């Protein structure tokens, strides 16, 4: 049994981070990358050992590390420890985080080598890997906590890493400040969600007198009986946190902007791991959600609506990463819908397979971008400054990369087909399980939304693959694009293999993952395999790809040609392209008014009223004194007159009393 090793999933990345921080400068790029990757890899190794231990001993084990907050009150104890909880749910997350994380670390050695040179500051290579290890650390804290407060530490910790990495090139982006603004937006949108998390914790403590999972879940039914309202309130406030971290309606707006971060970051944090924390949180809190059907329905509908809404936007994007970003929001919607319906295993299954294929797609997109950037450098010498405004992420500048970047093309295709849900790739099984659960759990509305979203998914992925890899190059850099070195392509191949065979994790009828998770999540119902539904989903996916082919594949886009879909859909396409003006809406409704209010409070109120009142009091006193001073004329005759008047008054008083 290796349970005692559990804290090392956190300690290894900590060591990696500290070593790179202290001596990284002397190690060189390969040394830095090797240490960071090794730290993530060792963490993965520990997670594997923990998985083996759990296979033999499936009961949850909590390993105490140190005491943390010791507050005892008559209403309950806030007595929390730094502890690592090892159960099948947390270990599943650990495996994904450290496993996919290690591959992305290795890829990033190659990617960042080029990226820091492209952006003109090689010194920042080390900083990148320090942040990446910090992220693994925070994510491990999040998934291995044995109480909500420690989860929250990881929850905000990964948010910090996200902030740091989105703003990694903080002097770049629109007007030189675009990336920094994107980072801030992510942090603040997440803080709005965290507000919900805080309130949920307060409510939990007031109902249970504890924040420890064991105390809460064991008494959930009892509390629900006594105060049903409070469970509903807890789960709804928690949903707010989920919509922040997992980029759901209405707080999803930060994730597309988060693509400002280097591409390995988009893959690791903004696709494979961090953004799934919300899904994990609902799965972790299954004991609470199962007792609040209204909250469950709300979660399911938020997920389903997000899945469809984000998919419509993905259809009309031109930036290769933006398409994937909206796709991620949409796929997170699938997972949130699943855990909302109570299909926790299905949600977790899709979380795992999505980590494989979306991680793969982002990394391959990074490979494409750097391939094109390479071509840009090649042609830039010849063309001079004419290419200054060239955007290596715009798919309209690509085309025909299939022959120039063979490995990238094939792995991209695998990822895209897996995402589209084509049999027998990973996405087919996991998405189908969610659809089957929706049918079984009698959620026809959710089912319709998700099927429509699945159709759009296949369509926009088809559109992307045809625009990027097929036809002829639509720009010089694309024509001179170059495949990347094996350090980058090998992790891609590994992820591609996982995307192809990942469905084996939870095959219909076998339900490996479901059985595994059942030790932690009680009352799981294995999803039935519904053949007609599976065939329908497959048909819908194929139809999406066929439509994409007929629009973008049959006659490939030419240089400068408008998107054929914009003619067909007209204003609808414009809406999708402009992201339904949600950012503008928030700007008018929230950000603008807050600016105005703050300005109003700072000037007219604070300076004009409050400060002026204090100073006014001073001026008043001064005026009064100046007036009183006139009494002191210095003339003896006036004083004598005053004395006389006073004497008369006193005498009069005595006489007429």
């Amino acid at each position, binding site marked *: 049994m290796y349970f005692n090793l559990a804290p090392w999933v956190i300690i290894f990345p900590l060591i990696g981070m500290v070593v790179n921080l202290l001596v990284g400068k002397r190690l060189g790029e390969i040394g830095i990358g090797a240490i960071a990757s090794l730290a993530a890899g060792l963490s993965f190794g520990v997670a594997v050992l923990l998985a083996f231990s759990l296979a033999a001993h499936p009961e949850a084990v909590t390993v105490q590390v*140190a*005491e*943390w*907050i*010791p*507050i005892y*009150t*008559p*209403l309950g104890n*806030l007595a929390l420890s*730094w502890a690592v909880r090892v159960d099948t749910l947390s270990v599943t997350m650990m495996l994904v985080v450290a496993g996919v994380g290690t591959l992305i670390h290795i890829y990033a050695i190659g990617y960042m080598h080029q990226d820091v040179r492209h952006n003109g*500051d090689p010194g920042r290579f080390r900083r990148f890997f320090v942040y990446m290890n910090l992220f693994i650390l925070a994510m491990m804290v999040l998934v291995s906590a044995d109480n909500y*407060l420690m989860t*929250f*530490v990881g*929850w*905000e*910790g990964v948010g*910090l890493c996200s*902030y740091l990495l989105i*703003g990694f090139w*903080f*002097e770049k982006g629109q007007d*030189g*400040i675009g990336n*920094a*603004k994107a*980072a*801030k937006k992510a*942090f*603040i949108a997440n*803080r*709005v969600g*965290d*507000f919900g998390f*805080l*309130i949920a*914790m*307060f409510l939990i*403590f*007031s109902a249970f007198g504890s924040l420890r999972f064991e105390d809460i879940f064991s008494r959930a039914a009892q509390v629900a009986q006594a105060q049903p309202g409070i469970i509903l309130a807890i789960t709804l406030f928690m949903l707010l946190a989920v919509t922040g971290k997992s980029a759901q309606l209405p707080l999803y707006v930060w994730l597309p902007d988060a693509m400002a971060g280097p591409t390995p970051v988009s893959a690791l944090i903004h696709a494979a791991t961090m953004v799934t924390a919300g899904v994990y949180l609902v799965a972790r809190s299954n004991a609470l959600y199962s007792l609040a059907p209204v909250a469950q329905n709300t979660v399911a509908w938020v997920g389903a609506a997000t899945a469809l809404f984000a998919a419509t936007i993905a259809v009309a994007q031109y930036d290769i990463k933006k398409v994937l970003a909206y796709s991620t929001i949409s796929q997170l919607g699938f997972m949130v819908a699943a855990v909302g319906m109570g299909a926790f295993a299905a949600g977790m299954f899709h979380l795992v397979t999505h980590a494989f294929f979306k991680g793969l797609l982002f990394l391959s997109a990074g490979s494409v971008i750097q391939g094109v950037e390479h071509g840009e450098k090649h042609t830039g010498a010849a063309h001079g400054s004419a290419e200054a405004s060239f955007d290596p992420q715009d798919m309209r500048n690509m085309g025909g990369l299939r022959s120039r970047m063979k490995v990238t093309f094939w792995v991209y295709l695998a990822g895209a087909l897996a995402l589209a849900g084509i049999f027998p790739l990973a996405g087919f099984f996991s998405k189908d399980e969610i659809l089957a659960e929706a049918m079984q759990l009698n959620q026809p509305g959710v089912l319709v939304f998700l099927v429509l979203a699945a159709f759009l998914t296949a369509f926009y992925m088809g559109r992307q693959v045809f625009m990027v890899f097929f036809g002829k190059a639509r720009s010089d850099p694309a024509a001179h694009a170059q495949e990347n070195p094996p350090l980058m392509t090998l992790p891609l191949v590994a992820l591609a293999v996982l995307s192809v065979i990942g469905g084996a994790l939870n095959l219909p009828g076998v339900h490996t993952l479901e059985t595994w998770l059942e030790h932690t999540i009680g009352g799981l119902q294995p999803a039935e395999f519904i053949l007609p539904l599976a065939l329908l989903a497959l048909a819908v996916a194929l139809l999406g790809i066929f439509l994409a082919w007929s629009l973008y594949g049959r006659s490939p886009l030419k240089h400068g040609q408008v998107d054929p879909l914009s003619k067909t859909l007209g204003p609808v396409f414009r809406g999708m392209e402009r992201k339904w003006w949600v950012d503008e809406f928030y700007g008018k409704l929230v950000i603008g008014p*807050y*600016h105005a*209010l*703050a*300005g109003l*409070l*700072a000037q007219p109120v*604070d300076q004009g009223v*409050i*400060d002026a009142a*204090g100073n006014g009091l*001073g001026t008043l006193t001064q005026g009064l004194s100046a007036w009183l001073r006139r009494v002191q004329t210095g003339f003896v005759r006036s004083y004598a007159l005053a004395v006389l008047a006073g004497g008369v008054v006193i005498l009069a008083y005595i006489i007429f009393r």
Partner: protein
Amino acid sequence: MNLGLHLLSLVTFFPLVGVLVILFLNDQQKTAIRWTALLTTLATFGLSLLVLLQFSTSNPDLQLVERATWVNIGGGEISYFLGVDGLSILLLLLTTFLTPIAILSTWDAVQDRVKGFMIFFLLMEIGMSGVFLAQDLVLFFVFWEFSLVPMYFLIGVWGGPRRIYAAIKFFLYTMAGSILMLVAILWLGLYQGTFSLPDLIAKGGLPATTQLWLFLGFAIAFAVKVPLFPLHSWLPDAHVEAPTAGSVILAGVLLKMGAYGLLRFNLSLFPQASIQLAPWLAAIAVIGILYGAAVAFVQKDMKKLVAYSSVSHLGFVVLGLFALTPSIAIQGSILQMINHGVSTGALFLIVGMIYERRHTREMDRLGGIWKVMPVYGALSLIVILSSIGLPGMNGFVGEFSILLGSFLSTVPYSPWFAGIAALGVILAAVYLLHMFEKVFLGPLNNPENAGLKDLRPREILTLLPLLVMIFWIGLYPKPFFALITPSVAKLAAALQTAAMTSIH
């Protein structure tokens, strides 16, 4: 046991040794004067650690007590009475901890009349320690007023362009409040025949209306100092004009004197009135949290932004105090006083470091600094995050305890107060990240910023102790809670009893 030493008196008055030595130094011997001041304050810090060593965490009562009758007026006995307990020990340590750091920060910044500066600084420390240790109301008032004078001169002589205006404003606002407190102290002492705080608490038995008036007399003085909305308008001016070290002490310690006063005097002496007025004070605190955050957001001067952030942060402290029971909120409040001292002290040091280089604090003229000053950027980010209340750092532990305690409190409407105050957590991220973005991120557009030199070892040394505290309290707050808990539990029990009796 006090080893026959008058340890608390020694801690309080030890800076006088430094004052005496400096008096014999020539104004031109700047280095000697600086070293004398630094070593004196370091020794004072060492003495306060000795206090900590002697302090028993299991004892909720006053410890290391020193008491001697001083004078008798009109049947009221005034005594020289010092003592320390869980409510004050951390604040004493904060004072002696921050003072040498503040002095270290003046090494290059203060070149003019160093002798006078250091003398005032050492006298300042005496006043502050005395405020936290005095257990007699008159003695407390003496220290309270005494601490006002050195700060008045520090702002008025070594301050910025509008220093005279700011210094007078600071003095008058505080004085106006103090006068009401003085009246309340005299009334109380003469009515009860003693000015000793423990005796007054033990006697109790004040009629409800009397309690109310006396409560207000004390509370207004403390509210100006905290400062509570809407009595805060001296603070931004004082901070903007004060020299860096003055701001560090002003935000780090002087503001805590107000919050500490509410805790030590209002809650202990007037429990019924506290219970009665708690919802009002909590409401004012919540308004202050949101108001300070909103106003901070639109400031253009870094120092003003940090000053308004103090209004917001101290709102949390007062909210926690007037959550009354359960004690978790008061424990959080005391810890948050320390946290604010550490984090905001560090923030002012950071502002000072850029000001020394650029002679401006206008955020519009900065930007992209992280690129030229990576160490400075990274350390500033840590401090800013601690002020935002990121979990794993100090601010979060305090804020969370306060909000949770307030949410559970029996004070009317308190779950609403906690819920609305939690919005302040979002707004803190808005204004502080705005500042970070304006100063550190983005392109280096202004050529004046391009040649800036990164932090010198001395500057890093100044920040280092504060950074250690940020993570220590954030990751392992247990020893701090251990110091606070017994005395707070005692206070909470007294409040509980008062609540029961006022029902019957």
